[in-house]
């Protein structure tokens, strides 16, 4: 074969392909002519490039949306104005700024970002520069390569977002981007094969929908890749990971009389995966404060303790997997009283607190084992440390204690002081707290209301005045159990302090002098549907952190090992609970039922007349009359030799055609009538 040209015709696919290159193929051309066959088809068509452009602008918007909160406002504004300008040029003016001019501006942007280079905030600076380069790229006249460059920049922006924030929104952006990119690149491939390609809407829709299979199939592949990609325990550029900003709520010192109103922060600090336990045992121990200077509590020097099993051997042991949000300290929280915490470089102190080596700058995961008990058995304590009274403490308080602590034994005095603070005189409040230099005195004698810090401080100091060693413990109280995820969500606002009093020969006993503590932290919110919803929604967050963010080398190894052992033991049994199996079976059956009903409904909807016709043909087939595909209904009737059958068949066809060829709807009465005739035919 030597020379030649191609031409095409329209066939059952409804496909149209432009061959005549001289024709005007602007996106506005609603009519398409195939000259070779004199075929004129009026069908609205779409230019592939227009769709690619629209998707590309969507990709650009997505890239911007993902990072705009993390960069300086001037950059946001610069991007948005350039982006709007390019939109205006692209779609209404069809004007593009020459490449050389844009390239020079891009170079300037790069030089500028080198000029402001600071190692501390490297990622943000790169993102800012990339965003401006992206906006510049949009101003260009775009070829295949340029579109690909835009997509690359957006992917880098998303990677930057991953370094800046570990939020779950990342996965939403990534998923949307993956779908947009798949569609766009497939269409771009079409575009690269023939820049003038024009398709009917149907075909474009089919191409777009069918190309969605690619990202859909890529998702499981990506999940697998995510699990098996090589990881290291010692990343080199760890500094690039910027920590989530620390939140307020918990501090390692308690300061009184400084803040008048406390803002409640309902963001999560802890997610603790564990079994559900009684609400009154929900004390999350963080830090122990022993030194009071009259205004604030702090922690004096303390000794580290060995990790061996502690003296608190009584009580139920509870294993927890804890996800701790970043905050400005290094204490690791766990259910009171924590025996072990498994975390790299964790330090255990003799007051049953644990701390990491550095500040918790990113979300961490650790495991802990706690014993649920009120008492820490300790034979001997440094009494001078735990009985220390601030020098300028008001003597009024000492007088008060003398009146209350009248019992001879410590246990009795502990109870009487507790009863004094809890007799209803003192109220719990987060508002209008006294701002004063003598907070305890004002709390006890004037204001008579305060938050847990006032109650705990007053109680601890009063105990010390009564000769009972005491300390203040800071942590969290309560939490909301998420039944779906099987974990406790502890918000920042649940930050709490309580007191530990030392009873000689017994040990440290937990006392919580704040009135109706639990109500303050848990039951207040129980009826709130929005809060419940947000707790439920938090399940997604929890799984996101638990499975994606905290996936690491160790987990990778453990998956490999469990797979390996699973393969080695061919007879291993999966333990399933019968009730569970039944539950899942019911769910599966219900889903299958829904799908079946939907399919049936769709089928029913589309082919009323087809169904009728096929049952007619079936009935006729029983008498040996088969209608061939090319035969018309009336033609078919001519073949019928038996009058008995011809008569009803004729009646059916006339009635059917009366409705069908007049484009009328088959009413239920019609259907009944026609079916009656069919039954008549069958009966003969």
């Amino acid at each position, binding site marked *: *074969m030597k020379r030649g040209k191609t031409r095409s015709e329209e066939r059952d696919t409804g496909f149209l392909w432009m061959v005549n290159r001289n024709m005007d193929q602007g996106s506005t051309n609603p009519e398409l002519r195939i000259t070779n066959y004199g075929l004129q088809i009026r069908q609205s068509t779409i230019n592939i490039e227009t769709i690619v452009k629209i998707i590309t602008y969507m990709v650009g918007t997505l890239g911007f949306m993902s990072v705009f909160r993390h960069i300086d406002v001037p950059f946001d504004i610069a991007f948005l104005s350039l982006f709007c300008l390019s939109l205006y040029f692209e779609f209404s003016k069809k004007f593009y700024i020459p490449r050389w001019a844009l390239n020079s501006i891009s170079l300037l942007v790069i030089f500028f970002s080198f000029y402001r280079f600071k190692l501390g905030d490297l990622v943000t600076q790169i993102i800012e520069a990339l965003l401006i380069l992206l906006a510049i790229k949009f101003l260009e006249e775009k070829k295949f390569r340029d579109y690909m460059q835009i997509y690359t920049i957006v992917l880098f922006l998303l990677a930057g977002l991953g370094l800046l924030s570990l939020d779950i929104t990342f996965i939403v952006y990534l998923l949307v981007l993956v779908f947009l990119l798949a569609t766009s690149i*497939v269409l771009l491939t079409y575009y690269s*094969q*023939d820049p003038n390609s024009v398709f009917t809407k149907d075909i474009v829709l*089919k*191409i777009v929908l069918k190309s969605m299979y690619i990202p859909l199939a890529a*998702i499981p592949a990506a999940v697998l890749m995510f699990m098996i*990609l090589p990881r290291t325990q010692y990343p080199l550029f760890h500094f690039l990971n910027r920590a989530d900003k620390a939140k307020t709520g918990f501090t390692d010192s308690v300061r009184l009389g400084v803040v008048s109103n406390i803002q409640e922060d309902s963001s999560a600090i802890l997610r603790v995966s564990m079994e559900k336990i009684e609400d009154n045992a929900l004390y999350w121990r963080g830090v122990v404060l022993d030194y009071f200077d009259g205004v604030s509590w702090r922690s004096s020097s303390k000794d580290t303790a060995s990790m061996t099993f502690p003296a608190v051997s009584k009580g139920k042991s509870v294993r927890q997997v804890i996800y701790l949000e970043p905050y400005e300290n290094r204490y690791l929280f766990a259910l009171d009283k924590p025996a072990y915490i498994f975390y790299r470089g964790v330090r255990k102190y003799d007051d049953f607190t644990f701390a990491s080596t550095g500040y918790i700058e990113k979300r961490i995961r650790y495991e802990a084992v706690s014993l649920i008990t009120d008492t820490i058995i300790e034979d001997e304590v440094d009494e001078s440390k735990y009985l220390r009274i601030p020098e300028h403490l008001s003597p009024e308080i000492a007088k008060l204690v003398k009146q209350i602590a009248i019992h001879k034994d410590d246990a009795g005095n502990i109870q009487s002081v507790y009863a004094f603070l809890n007799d209803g005189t003192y109220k719990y409040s987060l508002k209008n707290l006294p701002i004063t230099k003598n907070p305890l005195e004002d709390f006890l004698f004037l204001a008579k209301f305060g938050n847990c810090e006032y109650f705990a401080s007053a109680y601890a100091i009063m105990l010390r005045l009564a000769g009972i060693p005491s300390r203040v413990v800071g942590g969290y109280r309560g939490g909301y159990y998420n039944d779906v995820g099987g974990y406790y969500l502890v918000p920042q606002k649940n930050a709490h302090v309580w007191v530990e009093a030392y009873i000689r020969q017994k040990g440290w006993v937990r006392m919580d002098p704040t009135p109706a503590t639990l109500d303050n932290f848990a039951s207040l919110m129980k009826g709130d549907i929005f809060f419940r919803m947000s707790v439920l929604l938090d399940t997604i967050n929890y799984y996101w952190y638990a499975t994606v963010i905290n996936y690491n080398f160790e987990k990778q190894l453990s998956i490999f090992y469990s797979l390996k052992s699973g393969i080695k033991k061919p007879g291993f049994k999966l333990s399933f609970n019968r009730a569970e199996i039944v539950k899942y079976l019911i769910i599966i059956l219900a889903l299958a039922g829904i799908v079946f009903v939907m399919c049936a409904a769709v089928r029913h909807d589309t082919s009323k007349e087809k169904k009728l016709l096929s049952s007619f043909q079936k009935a006729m087939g029983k008498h040996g009359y088969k209608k061939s595909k090319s035969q018309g209904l009336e033609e078919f009737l001519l073949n019928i030799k038996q009058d008995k059958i011809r008569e009803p068949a004729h009646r059916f066809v006339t009635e059917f055609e009366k409705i069908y060829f007049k484009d009328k709807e088959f009413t239920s009465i019609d259907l009944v009538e026609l079916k009656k005739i069919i039954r008549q035919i069958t009966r003969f």
Partner: protein
Amino acid sequence: MTILLGVSAVNTGNNLMYLIVAALLGFMGISGFFGKNNLQKISVVIEFPQEIFANKDFPVKITLKNKKRLLPVFLLRLHVAEQSVLFPFADVKSETVKYMETAFSKRGQHIIKDIYISSVFPFNFFTRFKGLDNAFDCVVFPELKKCDLITLYEKGRRLKGEKASDKTGFESDIVSIREYVYGDPLKYINWKATAKTGALKTKELSSLLHQPITIDFDKVIIKDLEEKISCISYSIIQILKKNMPIGLRINDRLYEPGTSHGHKINMLKELALYQR
């Protein structure tokens, strides 16, 4: 880019970077699968018109069958010899037809093999190729070249005059008389027989035939063989256009004169394959 992101993922230990890299790698793997699948379960049928003459454009019908159930065929290019046709989209379980105009330069049997399909789908990064085992053959008739041979035979025909055939027609002698059938032209009614029998009778005439011509291949004196074949082919076509019976003696074989289409094809085929 994937490698770059991969390196940064490993070195930052950031799982979100890992997610991007995993998505890109997943994409690559899947795109490979889709690209491969795109070329599978496809059959191509090439159909030629019945009469192809050398050095004359003719359309080739190419039918692409997509036998897949789930995925359409995207952007498939079919390569035949040095030409290619693009099938941008072929729906599932459907046939798409395209025409390609082409021409052969030489007469004789042509076998078209080395047909292969290619596609850049899905991402225009690689082009995948796949050869098809099909082969299609066609016989290309000799090029038609105008020549004077035909006038020679015309002369001979005129000398001999026309002859009556045994088929019914309207030009020659009476063959029989039959019953009048409604619609017979009035001028064919045999009034004599009608009068005799009292019922309308119609004359049946035989048709006139041209004197048959037989071209004897060896007796045609044209030195160049190709020229000779072209000339004879041209004459056959021209004579048949006038509905004159023509025969051909070639390779010690005689094609009895005739006017049918099949007869024409047979003779042209013989000429096409002469000494090939």
